[in-house]
């Protein structure tokens, strides 16, 4: 269960809440936009990350469990490649 944090740069308006609430993973650049460490979160960090995501005024911080992409299949189920 690898969780990762990621920012939607279009939604982000540099409020900076995430860096306050998840300083272990997020720092701010000189314009106030978050620089996010995108490597898998450690277990104890997940709850903090989710709290930071909920606190973001524009919902720009995303915390998602990694999903493994399904194998490519043909239009009607036949395997390709």
């Amino acid at each position, binding site marked *: 269960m690898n969780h990762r944090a990621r920012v*939607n*740069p279009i939604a982000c308006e540099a409020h900076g809440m995430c860096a306050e609430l998840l300083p272990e993973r997020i720092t701010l650049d000189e*314009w*106030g*936009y978050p620089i996010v460490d995108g490597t898998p979160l450690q277990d104890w960090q997940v709850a903090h990350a989710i709290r930071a995501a909920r606190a973001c005024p524009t919902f720009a911080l995303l915390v998602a469990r990694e999903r493994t992409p399904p194998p*490519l299949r043909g*239009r009607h189920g036949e395997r390709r490649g």
Partner: protein
Amino acid sequence: MSVNSTLTESPAPTGQPAPAALPRLLVGVPLRGALSLEEHIAIHGPLPATSGRGRRRARERAALLIDEIERSGLLGHGGAAFPTATKMQAVASARRRAIVVVNAAEGEPASRKDRTLLERLPHLVLDGAILVAGAVGADEVIVCACESAKEGIESMARAIEERAVAAERAPRVHLNAVPNHYVAGQESAMVNYLNGGPAKPTFTPPLPFEQGVRRRPTLVNNAETLAHVALIARHGASWFRQLGTPSQPGSALVTLSGPLADPGVYEIEHGASLASLIKAAGGSTARTHGALIGGYAGSWVAGELLNGVALSNEHLAAHGASLGAGVVLLLSERACPVAETARIARWLAGQSTRQCGPCVHGLDALATTIEEIAGGVVQAQAGQRIGRLASLTAGRGACGHPDGAVNLILSALETFEAEFAEHARHGPCDRCARPPELPMPARPVSQESTRGMLARR
């Protein structure tokens, strides 16, 4: 600019009867106007059947075309060189009925190849679009052309009309003009625009192949890529591979500009030498500082290295460059590379769609720093500041624009290091005041053109 059908370096014929040599796409290209449907069929033969009787046959044929394209090794010609078959498979395996978008937005200011295809060879592009539509199960094709390509739009509209008379179970084909700015041709920006939004990139996922135009799985292919598909479907993968390199087979359209006797759009074999391309264009008319390869997201190759350059991504990687959308721009020695870079950096900052903070602020700060160096007004540690700004800007936008712009700026600083150092010490040179050589369309990303909900059909 002219259109030229040229250049075979090492055709390596293997005894196949089909014409393996160049020109392929540009065979029979008229000097003016477009090839009619009749002329097109006379040159290339009729469109190979995609839909047989019964759904089963149609499905088999579709899978066959995707397999053939996979074997051909065709890579996308829009700039990213992504394997075309992989994209098709992803769309074909989606459940909902798909849509095919022909990308001829060609936001790259120095590129003319896609508008040339629309203008002169619209049926080749339509062939490819109809073929991939059949293969991925799409019932609709949307051709997107840059609003500034008036002649291309007119000739494509006529071609679609010609087809409408003949079509039986072909997909519906629409033509759409998209705004003329740098980022409008980015996949998600184009899909966003077709959905009634502004022509600005969106946050992904979902990618267009998952959920694109009208939330349907959408295959976005560059116009030239589809023209190659039209020929692969007719002559096969092994024919296609007779030109080019093993990792980048086939030919490519290249827009060559700069101080040349005959600049224009040329068809080359991947791996052809830059020297042979320049020779085909009548040779250069002035000494050059170097060549910008891959457009405004591309890289510079210094003048003294140009003789050894081969035009394939594998080879160009050694120079930190790639062919991109097939743009090669020579900069004459009359121009000042520092002043040119400062102008381009400012232009690229202006082409940001201003959605992502790091792109807006980072590109602006980079442009300012370059302008300061060009003017000889240098803050302390300007070099370090550029390095830091570059790392704060690249990779932090929703699309690849900041990455491409940073790549170009860093490449210019490295290639023209001596000139930059000279300007930093002594200020502007005599050549700084000369008119710009590198093209920059005057029109910025105006809010008007990108707000969306324009009359489009």
